């Protein structure tokens, strides 16, 4: 794929999201959880970029910061050349129609006291996308897109299963004609057969409406199914970005290698070289100096402890932040 020629829809520059933590004592300096610490990436129109990483690495925080659900500490986010973080409340409200989100927990993402009709109607009313008389038709159309029947309109969320609720959530996001949808662990709470249905639905909708997805997940099989490009995060930093095939076939960063080797293979006789990482993820309040991964990296050298590795383009369109990526055994 020639991503370089594609149009950039979202550009994230040096995004930082620090959350203050309660101080133990008055005299100590104020501490912060560095949930996202200076990350940059871009998203091309019509693609699916996945962010993977273990829990606490900052992937969801990145999504929330882009949407300004939590105000980022520092950095810039440009959507179609427009600086999102510089917009005032009113301008931001208008722009929100273009940026939508699908959440993880289908049981918490719908107001239990609203019927599907009210949910969809409210979305359209807030963004004023459809005139009142046409809304009913539009609702039925939306339900059709996500594979729900017309009778669903007058029902409450608790009358649906998890997968169906997720479809309602998707219909709500689609109701305002978005261009970019952030899927925050959108299928993680569903069981595997339903995951496949929802993933295929998302893929079809992407084709149909030329949507761009920022797909946040910890599940590598899901990521492999849906992504065009994959970004791996570790402790608030980007460690590797590449096209999906490239990343899964020849991961360059030791962390990505370890992550990929943890995917279960449905063949008990197959012997594999698993990379088992030692220890736990360090605290994001006081992350290690140098490369954040050096405390657990089996290949770490002295330089890794001192110097923070920059994100380098080793192969075309394949970026990695590791000092010794070239010398690693593949």
């Amino acid at each position, binding site marked *: 794929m020639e991503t370089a020629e594609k149009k950039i829809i979202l550009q994230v520059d040096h995004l930082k999201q620090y959350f203050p933590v309660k101080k133990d004592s008055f005299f100590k300096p104020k501490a912060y959880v560095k949930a996202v610490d200076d990350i940059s990436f871009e998203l091309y129109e019509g693609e699916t970029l996945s962010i993977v990483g273990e829990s606490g690495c900052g992937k969801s925080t990145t999504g*929330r910061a882009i*949407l300004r*659900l939590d105000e980022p500490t520092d950095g810039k986010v440009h959507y179609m050349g427009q600086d999102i973080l510089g917009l005032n409340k009113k301008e*931001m*409200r*208008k722009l*929100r*129609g273009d*940026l*939508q*989100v699908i*959440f*993880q*927990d289908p049981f*918490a*993402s*719908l*107001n*239990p*006291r609203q019927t599907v009709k009210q949910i969809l109607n*409210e*979305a359209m009313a*807030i*963004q004023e996308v459809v005139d009142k008389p046409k809304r009913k038709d539009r609702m039925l159309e939306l339900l059709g897109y996500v*594979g*729900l*029947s017309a*009778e*669903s309109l007058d*029902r*409450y969320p*608790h*009358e*649906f*299963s998890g*997968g*169906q609720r997720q*479809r309602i*959530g998707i219909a*709500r996001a689609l109701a*305002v004609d978005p261009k970019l949808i952030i899927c925050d662990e959108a299928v993680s709470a569903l069981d*595997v*057969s339903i*995951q*496949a*249905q929802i*993933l*295929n639905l998302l893929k079809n909708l992407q084709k149909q409406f030329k949507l761009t997805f920022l797909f946040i997940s910890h599940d590598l*099989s*899901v990521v*492999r*199914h849906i992504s065009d490009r994959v970004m791996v995060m570790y402790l608030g930093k980007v460690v590797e970005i590449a096209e999906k095939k490239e990343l899964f076939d020849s991961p360059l960063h030791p962390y990505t290698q370890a992550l990929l080797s943890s*995917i*279960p*293979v*449905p063949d008990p006789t197959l012997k594999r070289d698993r990379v088992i990482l030692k220890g736990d993820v360090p605290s994001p309040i006081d992350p290690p100096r140098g490369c954040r991964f050096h405390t657990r990296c089996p290949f770490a050298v002295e330089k890794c402890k001192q110097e923070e590795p920059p994100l380098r383009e080793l192969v075309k369109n394949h970026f990695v932040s590791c000092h010794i990526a070239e010398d690693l055994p593949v």
Partner: protein
Amino acid sequence: MTVEVKTEQPNIAAKSFISKKESRLKDFLSILIQNKAALVGAIIILIYIFMAMFAPLLAPYSPYEIDLENKLTPPSSEHWMGTDDKGRDILSRILYGSRLSMGVGFAAVLFGAFFGIIFGLVAGYYGKWVDTIIMRMMDVMLAFPGILLALAIIAALGPSLINVTIAVGAFSVPLFARIVRGSTLEVKRLEYIDAIRSLGANDLIIIAKHIFPNILSPIIVQGTLRLATAILSAAGLSFLGLGAQPPSPEWGTMLSSGRDFLFSAPYIALFPGLAISILVLGFNIFGDGLRDAFDPRMKK
């Protein structure tokens, strides 16, 4: 490792067509009915409401009519609860009094709930310094014993039933504010609030349409329990001569005027006292029952 591809449509028709909203209401009612005490509470409250509504039809005499020839008569077939020191029929006065006591109770709780809910929602939703300022103000109000605060307010405004309502309502405000704030904090972090925010809804819509309807249960329970306290406090203040003034048939006032005849004609104080106790008991056990019925852990 590859995800299996299925294009099967979700099966909606197979789901039961009985609306779950109805069945939830049924669940709720059945729990309430199973809880015998709550049922008794509900019946007591309904009887009192009936009394208040139809007092003019039910009362055999006027509550104000003075009949000095028949003063201090003990309960008889003519005067079921006897007559007081001015010959007024006590039953009629109690029937009319239920309007005053319940009216003051409801008005005070509505007043307290209204401001308490607004303060609680604003504090819980906006957080940070807004929360700190509002909740510290509420703490200051809570630091006073309720009746003392009410006395202070009445001392400033003068004794009357309306001022008693304001005073009793005022010391309910922080209680509602605390409960509402807590529930708001809980609901605020749910994903559907984020979803509606990312659609571009303003704060007023989020608070009024998405947070408030989902925190109603604790408010209703607290409101019912506060009604009992409010009625008792209002009667207490009237007993002290700070609320309704004689000859008004307010129960607290009646109790107070029966004090002088406690040995010669105990029924003058006895019946208003019973009226208050039974109503307060009714609200209390009904409130407890509601709390259990709303508690998801009580469901089988």
